[in-house]
């Protein structure tokens, strides 16, 4: 499997480690009334789709950037690779 790194170009997936669902970016507000419930869901509940899935990958044997990879879990086709930093900032985090 080849991951097309947005900065460094196509790289073998062996250079990366996989973290999982990219919704880990959406860390809940700890001051919310429903924080306990929100963090339980954030920590434990995951979709397990047969199809398109947004995932976090870490370029451990490369520039050590975090990526959001949109991958089809059935075919391993990759449709989009973005810097996790850019995705997080678009969602109002880390600004």
């Amino acid at each position, binding site marked *: 499997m080849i991951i097309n790194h947005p*900065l460094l170009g196509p790289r073998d997936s062996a*250079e990366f480690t996989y973290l999982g669902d990219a919704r880990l970016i959406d860390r809940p507000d700890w001051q919310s009334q429903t924080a306990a419930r929100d963090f339980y869901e954030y920590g434990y509940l995951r979709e397990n789709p047969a199809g398109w899935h947004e995932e976090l990958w870490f370029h451990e044997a*490369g*520039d050590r950037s975090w990526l959001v990879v949109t991958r089809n879990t059935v075919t391993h086709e990759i449709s989009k690779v973005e*810097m996790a930093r850019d995705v997080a900032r678009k969602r109002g985090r880390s600004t």
Partner: protein
Amino acid sequence: MHDLVKQTALGGTEPRVDKYDHITISENDGLSLASVAARRGKEADCHKLLKKLLGAVPGPGRAQLHDPEAGFWMGPEQWMIGAPSESHEDLAERLKGLLGDAASVTEQTGAWVCFDVIGPAMQDMCERLCSVPIRQMQAGDAQRTVIHHLGCFVIRRTAADHIRILGPRASAGSLHHALVATAQALDTGSYGSDAPA
């Protein structure tokens, strides 16, 4: 006063050199290093100051080979700057003086070991060690990769048969073993003057 003797990363008093017919592996003990990370919102200031220092700001996968200070890209808005330790032992302090609040600077000299690998077998050796596309790389290309499970930087220098490898200093002995074992595993005979390039 303490009477302290300076040791190289491999523990010797002089940098180690392993010389073979087809490759020379030299420990480079004369390099001061410091990392620079642009602070949020100050990226443009940081770029301007780095350009003043190096002549250009190296982009992804690139190094700016420049004297006395040189630098290479490590990640988004992050660079490693190197200079001769003889003249720049206080490199991190100098960079902090230059960059001010545009960037965070961290002393890196004591964190890395540097090897210069030079010789006609350099490309073959590099291919056995790591997955960087050495034959496509130009002078000034710099990649982070893994050599025997150690995160290393591989920088292609101006001379066509020269790469510089930076690896974790605490594992200098392991990295040196990897380089020497690979050099010995290559067939010396195929690098004669009439061998194909």
